[in-house]
């Protein structure tokens, strides 16, 4: 049942007010006010979300809270309004976005304490919260696309936050342009959907209406549209082939990387697939595509993360890899499992990024792990929380990551995709390996820190460590809402999400212990390998790298994908822009038209001025000619 809940509007109102305040008054009113308003509005939004959530659980399953904020598009029979809907899926996403977002806002207070542009930063961050909330709370595809574009914009603004640096600005542009390519696919997919339904006389992009009329789509239409939507999702969620912007996005402030490129924006693609689960179920080919892209991206990104030296780059590729898991989950039909992993990933990845930020902050900007080491004693809180996060991402029970990743892998196996399952568990081994490599290199062993930085190493202030602790708690306990069946209270999350995203239908049932055992075993193997390679025998990695030099170089250079894109996409486009559009269209045609207009007038003037000779008799002559003409005309009239 649908319940009218006007307070939903407040969820959007608070970040909007925060954005406006920080943008226009932040710099003038000073750091004190901005530090309160910035995080404060997000906490306020979170409070409203909690209230709405409580209301929702008291209603029967499948209920929706809704409110229409504004009438927007009424084009004939087609209607798309600013309507918010709060069902189970939106509730979960909103809780994550506002909750983790609020924590990251608090962390940012400390992180940006020495930056002059704090007001602009919080303004953009609040704008991002607004856009992301629009995205997850929208009730139709068009409104959702507005949020989709908004988060892309904020991503650009925040990546190139320190725009004075050319390469940072370039990274921001790269993110935006690559996103745009995905958005083009998304748009065309949207058009196809609305056209397909329109041919049956139904003009709408409202999710509830789409779900109710899903049977009107033919399989071909659904497949093509779904694939186009997936193109959009790969752009936003950094999957193959549109993932190239995410590693470069690490030049932004670390809290930005945590919020946007780990916890929320990049999960928008997964959310979109889950939201349109009924549509994707109509197109098995598209689902296969999603699952395959997810699995391949996961193992591919993990392989690159194995050899990176920059701490943030490791985490970036890790994010791409984990997003691959989510895609894999929704691709085989386990939508609830994919969303579960979105939630736990938000907790532990945000925590990982914030801890990395803490380390970088302590080392005065150092990001190279080979210049770290032995920080365990100097940064205790950071170390402990990061260790917890690493255990989670490596899927060690009873931490949160175990339950979500395990549910995905189990679903993959039970849906018959055994090949993809194998890719998944290999990736799990690689994940635990590179994450523990990160921990060992950063916090253990001898200190390789530059001597002038050693003296300044200090733990972060409590405004930065408090969110770390909260996120660590969530990383431990967050998975306990999705316990396997028959264990304590079972999978409450699945039950909660089922009305929104459907149920997963397995076609077989692999042995639970076998599946869990294999993945757990491989994860532990990864940890042991990392321990061996980086603590026991630190020289081993260099030896192996030397032996497999070409393979190592390929992985280190990210498989040269950026260079490939540069060659086949960027350069030709630039060439077209300058040679064709620049020279021909702009200089020749458009300038020609404009200049030509002027030239025509000028030449006309030059010719006409010959008539002004100043000679009266010539004027009289022309006059007589005119008279002759008029009289001739009268003669003609008279005689006929």
């Amino acid at each position, binding site marked *: 049942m649908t319940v009218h809940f006007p307070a939903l509007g407040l969820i959007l109102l608070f970040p909007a007010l925060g954005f406006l305040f920080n943008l226009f008054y932040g710099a003038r009113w000073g750091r004190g006010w901005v530090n309160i308003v910035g995080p404060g509005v997000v906490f306020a939004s979170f409070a409203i979300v909690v209230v709405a959530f409580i209301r929702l659980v008291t209603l029967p399953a499948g209920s929706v809270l809704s409110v229409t904020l504004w009438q927007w598009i009424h084009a004939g029979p087609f209607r798309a309004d600013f309507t918010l809907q709060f069902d189970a899926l939106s509730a979960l996403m909103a809780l994550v976005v506002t909750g983790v977002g609020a924590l990251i806002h608090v962390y940012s207070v400390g992180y940006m304490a020495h930056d002059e542009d704090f007001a602009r930063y919080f303004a953009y961050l609040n704008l991002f919260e607004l856009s992301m909330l629009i995205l997850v709370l929208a009730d139709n595809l068009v409104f959702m696309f507005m949020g989709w574009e908004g988060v892309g914009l904020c991503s650009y603004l925040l990546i190139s936050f320190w725009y004075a640096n050319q390469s940072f600005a370039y990274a921001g542009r790269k993110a935006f342009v690559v996103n745009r390519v995905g958005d083009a696919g998304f748009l065309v997919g949207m058009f196809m959907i609305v056209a397909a339904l329109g041919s049956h006389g139904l003009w709408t992009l409202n999710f509830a209406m789409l779900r109710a009329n899903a049977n009107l789509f033919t399989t071909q239409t659904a497949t093509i549209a779904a694939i186009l939507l997936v193109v959009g999702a790969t752009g936003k969620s950094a999957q193959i082939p549109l993932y190239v912007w995410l590693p470069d996005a690490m030049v932004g402030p670390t809290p930005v990387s945590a919020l946007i490129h780990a916890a929320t924006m990049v999960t928008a693609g997964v959310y979109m697939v889950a939201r349109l689960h009924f549509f994707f179920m109509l197109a098995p080919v598209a689902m296969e595509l999603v699952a395959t892209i997810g699995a391949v991206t996961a193992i591919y990104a993990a392989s690159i993360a194995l050899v990176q030296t920059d701490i943030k780059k490791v985490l970036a590729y890790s994010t791409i890899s984990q997003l691959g898991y989510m895609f894999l989950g929704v691709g085989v039909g386990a939508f609830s499992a994919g969303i579960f992993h979105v939630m736990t990933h938000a907790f532990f990845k945000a925590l990982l990024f914030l801890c990395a930020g803490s380390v970088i902050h302590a080392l005065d900007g150092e990001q190279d792990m080979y210049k770290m080491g032995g920080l365990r004693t100097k940064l205790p809180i950071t170390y402990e929380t990061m260790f917890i996060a690493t255990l989670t991402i490596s899927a060690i029970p009873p931490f949160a990551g175990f339950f979500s990743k395990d549910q995905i892998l189990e679903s993959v196996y039970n849906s018959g995709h055994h090949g993809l399952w194998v890719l998944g568990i290999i990736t799990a081994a690689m994940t635990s390996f590179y994450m523990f490599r990160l921990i060992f290199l950063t916090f253990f062993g001898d200190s390789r820190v530059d001597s002038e930085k050693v003296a300044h190493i200090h733990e972060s202030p409590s405004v930065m460590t408090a969110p770390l602790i909260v996120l660590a708690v969530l990383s431990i306990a967050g998975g306990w809402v999705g316990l396997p069946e028959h264990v304590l209270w079972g999978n409450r999350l699945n039950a909660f999400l089922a009305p929104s995203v459907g149920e997963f239908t397995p076609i077989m049932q692999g042995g639970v212990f076998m599946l869990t055992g294999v993945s757990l075993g491989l994860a532990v193997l990864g940890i042991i390998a990392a321990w061996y390679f980086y603590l026991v025998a630190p020289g081993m990695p260099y030896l192996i790298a030397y032996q497999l030099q070409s393979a190592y170089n390929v992985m280190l250079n990210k498989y040269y994908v950026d260079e490939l894109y540069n060659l086949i996409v960027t350069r030709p486009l630039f060439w077209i822009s300058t040679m064709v559009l620049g020279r021909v269209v702009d200089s020749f045609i458009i300038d020609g038209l404009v200049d030509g207009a002027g030239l025509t007038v000028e030449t006309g003037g030059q010719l006409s001025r010959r008539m002004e000779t100043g000679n009266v*008799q010539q004027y009289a*002559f022309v006059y*007589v*000619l005119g*008279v*002759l003409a008029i*009289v*001739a005309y*009268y*003669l003609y009239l*008279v005689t006929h």
Partner: protein
Amino acid sequence: MPATLFIFLAVVSIITSLGVVVQRNPIHCLLALILTLIAIGALFLALDAVVVGFLQIIVYVGAIMVLFLFVIWLLNLQVEAVPTGSLAVKFFATIAAAGVAAELFVFFSKTTGALGGVTVAAGYGSIDSLAQTLFGQYLMAFETTSILLLVAVIGAVAIARRTIPERERDAPTRGTPT
């Protein structure tokens, strides 16, 4: 009126008007114009337009042509020395004039009626009937025309008078015969 009278007057007026256009000496042109005007005035009289005919002689010839004469003397215009103007101009101008004549001939050939065929009222063309029409139906136009004449007089005086600096400037060099 008898045809012979008309033909005589027509021939005179054509020849003298040709004379106006062709003559070199401005005084001769003026003389030819006066003769043309008198011939046309005679035609007016023959067409029972008595008042207008006499007015033509008195006003047109007696006043306007005298004015022309005075201006020719004032400007001391001499005989035009060299025939100026290119052949092309003369050619096209003649063609244009001939064209005008041809068109008008065609137009006016439609005019019907013989002179004797129309009987006019008694007193037609007399000063009585002219005054009646003029001060009756066309009184406004009459008054406006009088204002026009006033304006013309003022304008002519204003344009043609010398200003003081001119007089000073002209004084020393004036009177040199050319």
